[in-house]
């Protein structure tokens, strides 16, 4: 299927490892030019090297997406380097585990700053450039805690639900400009995040990821982990000319985990 992504310019936040890097690699594979950002110079350089080794037109910028000045310069640097901006993938941010008693408000504040306020600013900075093309895509990676709340995912649930509301409202605003705003919702994807993750609490402490799979697998219909590339496939599809009537919606890439039917 021709996705029509050749020559498009893509910005992927948090694109130096895991899901973000997989997304960047897939865009490179589709012939797009890709800017990634990260907080750590060594990891950023390694990611850009990997993207260029794959024959890609790639650039990396140091940026903390929870710092609004960084977000502004990230978008400006991307446009200065590639001359335009067509697609933004907001992927930065992690999962914050713990109960309301475990997490002081400062931790939640930081989480919201990265995944909600930073994305708000990213949209504000990117919009003028997307509008110039009279088309554009803004895709947010929203962890499945947004749809599947729980006692020990309360911080991510609150934050990710806000992301969903942001995506839907922003899509309403930008439809008239032919800028499509959507989300991809991962859960149970292998990444550096899950390498050290202990699912279902202490019961599985010290056990391998494979061993843990048998535990939460009871709750996940497909009963296995997905790969970062599974997310990347959904993202490049959402960003493509093949998804031009999709806006304000999302795709679950979670092995059937979330329970809502509507």
């Amino acid at each position, binding site marked *: *299927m021709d996705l029509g992504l050749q020559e498009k310019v893509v910005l992927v936040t948090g694109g130096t490892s895991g899901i973000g890097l997989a997304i960047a690699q897939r865009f490179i594979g589709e012939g797009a030019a890709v800017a990634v950002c990260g907080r750590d110079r060594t990891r950023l350089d390694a990611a850009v090297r990997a993207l260029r080794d794959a024959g890609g037109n790639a650039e990396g910028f140091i940026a903390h997406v929870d710092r609004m000045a960084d977000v502004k310069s990230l978008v400006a640097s991307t446009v200065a380097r590639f001359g335009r901006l067509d697609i933004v993938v907001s992927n930065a941010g992690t999962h914050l585990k713990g109960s309301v008693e475990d997490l002081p408000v400062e931790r939640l504040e930081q989480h919201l700053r990265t995944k909600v306020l930073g994305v708000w600013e990213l949209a504000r900075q990117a919009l003028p450039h997307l509008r110039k093309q009279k088309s554009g895509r803004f895709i947010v990676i929203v962890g499945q805690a947004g749809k599947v709340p729980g006692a020990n995912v309360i911080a991510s649930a609150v934050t990710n639900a806000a992301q969903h509301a942001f995506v839907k409202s922003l899509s309403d605003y930008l439809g008239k400009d*032919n800028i499509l705003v959507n989300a991809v919702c991962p859960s149970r994807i292998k990444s550096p995040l899950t390498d050290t993750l202990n699912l279902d609490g202490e019961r599985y402490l010290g056990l391998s990821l494979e061993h843990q799979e048998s535990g939460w697998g009871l709750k996940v219909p*497909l009963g296995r982990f997905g790969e970062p590339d*599974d997310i990347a496939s959904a993202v490049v599809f959402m960003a493509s000319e093949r998804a031009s009537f*999709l806006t*304000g919606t999302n795709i679950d890439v979670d092995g059937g985990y979330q329970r809502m039917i*509507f």
Partner: protein
Amino acid sequence: MDLGLGGRVAIVPGGTRGLGKAVCRRLLQEGAAVAICSRKQEHVDAAVAELTALAGDAGRVFGHVADVTDPEAVPAFASAAHQRFGRIDILVFSAGTHRRATVYDLKPEDLQHHLDEKVFGNFAMIRAVLPAMRAQKDGRIVNIVGQAARHPHSDRLPSGTTNAAQAAMTKSLADALARQNIRVNAVCPQYIETELASTLIAKEMRDRGVDRETASAGFWRANVLKRMGTLEELADTVAFLVSDRATFITGSTISVDGGYHRYPFG
């Protein structure tokens, strides 16, 4: 993006027209073979001729006369398709139409027929393809569930009721079949320019003496993109979901509706 659909076999009841036929065109372009059915021989013949011309290969298109509300015809169709192609990888269920009526004018027998087509027909078709998919340890099922499932209205009582049942069935079957590597998802269209919509727009143009733009505006004024979607735009999402690029997606629904749906989590 390589969808890995070359050599795959898709069953598409309702593939003789509208959404189903557009899905067939896309799957053929990706190298799959398709089996379609319809109640009327002439509809089957016309669609087979058109799709064969597109495929450039008579070996990849199979047509069969079957009514999805007929409990004997459905398994017969599946087994004829299996016999012809030797496998069944994909089922895209798009049979059934959109029906508007209110509690005052909906006759129980009309609701029954709607349920027979879109719920019992869908269920029967899935049961009919399961043996082949289980044997292959691989299956990809997409149900086309009109957006009336999530947006009931007083005048969409039949579609609202029927489509909600289809959505529930999709999720339950996704749970039941995942461990056999059979994925079940739904695509929820709204404002797609089907033959039905085109007919309604043409009628509006004649009745009101207005141009196409004005006539179609009544159909898309509630969506964000302010236009009708094309059949191809729907088919592209279906092709992605049944592909090798979507192997971790099951029990999910994707709206292809230009932003009409109002629920932020859907």
